[in-house]
């Protein structure tokens, strides 16, 4: 498994809403070997403060060596990141972790909420590359409001799967939670669910899947210092007792591997 520390050049910064950004980096070595669901650790500046790298899931890679991150400004690190301009460089370490295990023989139901949409473009792309026909596959995306979804939709629409949307305020698609939308949809027989989103959303999605005996993979978040199994900071209670480490054993898990708060 190849991992690199790469000095990546910012090639594009897109601002989608007040706090949501997409950053494109020229990062060919990492982009060349990353898998959907894997992440990178990014150092937002060269100084001692902020000190730690930040984990970001990989939004998309391209054959020309570009790697994209989709993020929301939530603190100091992401605030600094949002102010990056094309030509600036960043230290990127990756690709890290265990990504989604795509089952090309089973119809896919890809479910993303809020910032959890970030890794799904890469997943959808790979899903559609592996299958001759992804017309049976569903993409279910949810967010608080239209502005958080709309700028990303065009990229997803290129792949030909069926897209359903939900927003809390009803400004795009179903009004309400993504789980209500999922419950109302006829899910394809023998499907596999791939999910990323807020903890509460993933808990209800995994519970729905368990009740219908649908295999479900989730991508979870954690604070972490190293991203590679050295600091043991990213512990999460595992279903079989003890802790699992999100950086090595995740971030993508079979939902059954984790302990969910009910």
């Amino acid at each position, binding site marked *: *498994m*190849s*991992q690199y*520390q790469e000095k990546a050049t910012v090639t594009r910064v897109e601002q989608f809403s007040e706090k949501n950004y997409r950053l494109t980096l020229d990062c060919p070595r990492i982009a060349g070997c990353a898998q959907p669901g894997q992440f990178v650790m990014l*150092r937002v500046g060269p100084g*001692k*403060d*902020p*000190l*730690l*790298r930040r984990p970001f899931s990989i939004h998309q890679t391209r054959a020309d060596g570009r790697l994209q991150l989709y993020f929301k400004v939530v603190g100091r690190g992401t605030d600094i990141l949002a102010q990056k301009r094309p030509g600036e460089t960043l*230290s990127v*370490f990756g690709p890290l972790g265990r990504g989604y295990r795509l089952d090309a023989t089973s119809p896919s139901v890809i479910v993303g909420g809020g910032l959890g949409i970030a890794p799904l473009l890469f997943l959808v792309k790979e899903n559609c590359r592996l299958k001759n026909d992804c017309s049976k596959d569903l993409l279910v995306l949810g967010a608080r409001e239209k502005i958080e979804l709309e700028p990303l939709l065009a990229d997803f629409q290129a792949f030909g799967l069926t897209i359903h949307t939900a927003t809390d305020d009803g400004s795009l698609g179903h009004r309400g939670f993504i789980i209500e939308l999922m419950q109302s949809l006829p899910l394809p027989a023998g499907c596999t669910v791939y999910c990323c989103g807020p903890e509460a959303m993933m808990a209800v999605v995994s519970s729905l899947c368990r009740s219908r005996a649908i295999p479900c993979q989730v991508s979870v978040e*954690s*604070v*972490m*210092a*190293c991203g*590679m*199994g*050295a*600091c*043991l*900071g*990213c*512990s*999460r*209670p595992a279903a079989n007792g*003890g*802790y699992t480490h999100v950086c090595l054993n995740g971030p993508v898990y079979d939902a059954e591997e984790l302990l969910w708060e009910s």
Partner: protein
Amino acid sequence: MGELSPGINVLPDLRVNIGSLELANPVMTASGTFGYAREFENLMNLHRLGAVIVKGISLHPRAGNPPPRIVETACGMLNAIGLQNVGVDRFITEKMPYLAALHIPVIVNILGDSLAEYEEITARLAGIAGVAGIEVNISCPNVKKGGVAFGTDPAMAAAVTSAVKKKADVPVMVKLSPNVSDIKVIARAVEDGGADSISLINTLIGMAIDLKTKQPVLANVIGGLSGPAIKPVALRLVYEVAKVVSIPVIGIGGIESAEDALEFMLAGATAVQIGTANFLNPRASEDVVDGIAAYAVAEKLTSIRSLIGGLRLPAARPQSLIPMKNPAK
């Protein structure tokens, strides 16, 4: 190397001695920041390390603390991992074969809840191929009992040291806590207990609070502070301890660069350990080795040993010559 003709660049001599243990260079990785080394094998050249110190090992496996275990602070981080480890038996069967095959000195960090546990772990490590030394953790702030209690009481610190020494067939390094009122007392006690070297500092106990939730950020409430934030404190403590003991001192605390490492050597450290910097840059320790070598070449040092304790203090002046502030103003 005397046969080499003039004009050929001779690599600087970076060797240092920690008691009977000779290291190829003064750079080690600090326990708990480098896993069991294998995690780093594709990211740096492990053979460049002076020594590797592995994640602390207890008699029985430990699951560690619930999350959140870490939080970033100004120029540093707090951790409360809780000494999660596989236990000494699994360490020997699962981790040690890989480490032994590296052919670099492997120092095993050990911790216990009682003198008997420290003794038992040491006894089990005796005779295991590849173990070049033992680092005794008497200073971890993140476990309920044992650990730090041994590190804050001079008599207990000496007792643990001599208990480990009795069973050990390799040099014993004792890792001190900075969370004491006078570290010199503990250092001397540990030396009297038979320690072959002293490493310091472990983390400083700290805390972070989330104002929104009015809760501590760490599930353990308190944690150990590490990173550049603690370097000045660590330097001062190494300086003080090196003056009062005659065994080698190993400096730890916020070392990220060769410059940091060299400052610790001037303060009296024979060698250093790289900790939190491994998280930011997986090849930080190798970069420090490169930087020390470059410094030795630039300064034309025949041996890096010449730097140890080489701090130049301001000349002592007679009291009468020190300018007085005008008391009238």
